[in-house]
């Protein structure tokens, strides 16, 4: 087999890990609250800035800074829910979409205002992993592993705990949750916090691979979004698989054609698949 093609496939799998990690939180929010956080990638950006400032500026150890960022972004998620989502829970979905779209714009500009447009970097260089002729990115492997662990942990949480089951149930029938003794607002707040924390977790891993700047969200926003839809919005397993499908199209398509074409392929694939399976890859 063509060694370079093999490398492209491996790269695709690793990229899939990064994208899957990003999709986790967004999917959870959609599944439970039935709202799409368009500004999700911007929350990741906020997390990256938090780590940068805490680590590079205040000199906190990287793990502590990461932990703080996870908590910080979880807090942002709660704020986002309280200030933006909860007042318009009853509105048309498109209004919810646009409100979070406005937040995207707001967060981007606020970051510009606060931090300037400079690219920031925490300056951590991770070792290389070399297996014969194949090189594997340490940071990507880390992201891949975390995505896997995160997905399994989330799966266990959603299937084993009372709160997790309630989260899955709430997506199916909101109105009667009260009859089960479930306080819907509380579940939404917790979900927003968990979704935020997952964005914070993604930030911890992305900051190892990317420079932070106010527009970093543009790189990830659209593709993360497509992945969640492709997997079936709110379908965790579907989203996980979709991340790897999309990343393979991008990686292998990029290898055979060009990166530009690979994205066109990914989007066309998305459109066609929406026609064939409008409810997502794993639709029943």
């Amino acid at each position, binding site marked *: 087999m063509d060694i370079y093609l093999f490398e492209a496939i491996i790269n695709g799998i690793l990229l899939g890990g990064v994208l899957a990690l990003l999709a986790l939180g967004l999917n959870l929010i959609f599944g439970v609250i039935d709202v799409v956080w368009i500004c999700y990638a911007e929350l990741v950006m906020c997390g990256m800035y938090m780590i940068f400032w805490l680590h590079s500026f205040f000199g906190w150890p990287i793990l502590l800074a990461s932990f703080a960022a996870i908590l910080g972004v979880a807090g942002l998620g709660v704020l986002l829910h309280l200030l933006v989502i909860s007042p318009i829970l009853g509105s048309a979905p498109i209004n919810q979409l646009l409100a979070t779209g406005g937040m995207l714009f707001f967060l981007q500009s606020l970051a510009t205002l606060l931090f300037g447009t400079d690219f920031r970097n925490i300056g951590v260089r991770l070792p290389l992993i070399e297996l014969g002729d194949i090189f594997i990115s340490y940071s990507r492997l880390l992201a891949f592993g975390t995505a896997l662990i995160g997905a399994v942990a989330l799966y266990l949480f959603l*299937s084993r705990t*009372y709160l997790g*089951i*309630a989260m*899955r*149930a709430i997506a*199916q*029938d909101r*109105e*009667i*949750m*009260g*009859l*089960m*003794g*479930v*306080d*819907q607002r509380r579940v939404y707040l917790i979900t927003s916090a968990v979704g935020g924390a997952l964005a914070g977790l993604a930030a911890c891993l992305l900051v190892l691979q990317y420079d932070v700047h106010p527009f970093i969200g543009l790189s990830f926003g659209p593709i993360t979004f497509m992945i969640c839809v492709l997997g079936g919005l709110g379908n965790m397993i579907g989203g996980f698989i979709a991340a790897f499908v999309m990343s393979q199209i991008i990686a292998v398509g990029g290898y055979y054609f060009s990166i530009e074409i690979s994205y066109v392929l990914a989007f066309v694939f998305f459109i066609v698949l929406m026609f064939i399976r409008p409810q997502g890859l794993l639709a029943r």
Partner: protein
Amino acid sequence: MAADQNGQRSLGEGAMLTLCNISAGYGSFRALFDVSLEVGAGEAIGVVGPNGAGKSTLMRVISGMLRASSGELVFEGRPLTHVPAHRIVEAGIAHVPEHRRLFARLTVEENLRIGAFLPQARRHYVERSEWVYALFPRLLERRRQLAGTLSGGEQQMVAIGRALMSKPKLLLMDEPSAGLAPLVVDQVFDLVRRIREEGYTVLIVEQNLQQVLDVVDRAYLLEVGRIRLSGLSAELKKNPAIRKAYIGL
């Protein structure tokens, strides 16, 4: 203690649930007008009436899904008029909603677990679930199956089981026989009878007058949002107006 009060209750002080002049509606549409009723501990009460009489609205008001626009709701001496639904469950009222409303994409077992969401219920989850499975052995066989794949009668078992998981003092049942085949309807009323025998206080809303009057002690007749008649079920069964209008004789 509750079971031996069957059939004979005294009005006033001893009532478990009291509704006093409850009015409610949706937007500008009013569905209930000054409804008052009482449920004593250990009683089985029916609320009967035609389609659109406001029966389900009444249930929704009691369980907190809908706010009463005026009137008072007292449960075991506690006013519950403007308390949100999840607090009402805590107080001890469980509601088996109209059309069952199961979580179709959760398993039977998970549906039961949701029913035991309250902290006080979680502690007794194991014994409660064993008890529910004993009550409905069919569910034990199907516990890993998705609730949406069950038959109508089985789904009704899950809905009742789910409500019982919170160890309620009062069980509200909204049209348990609706949409079921006649044979299954009989089974459902058997279920209600068995739950009564377990000592639960039950408030049941039904269109199916004939069968519900066989199960309950007393009943109220609700028409266009107002209570028209009330009395012991034996008396109501004999009431010529009711016989004419609802039992088809």
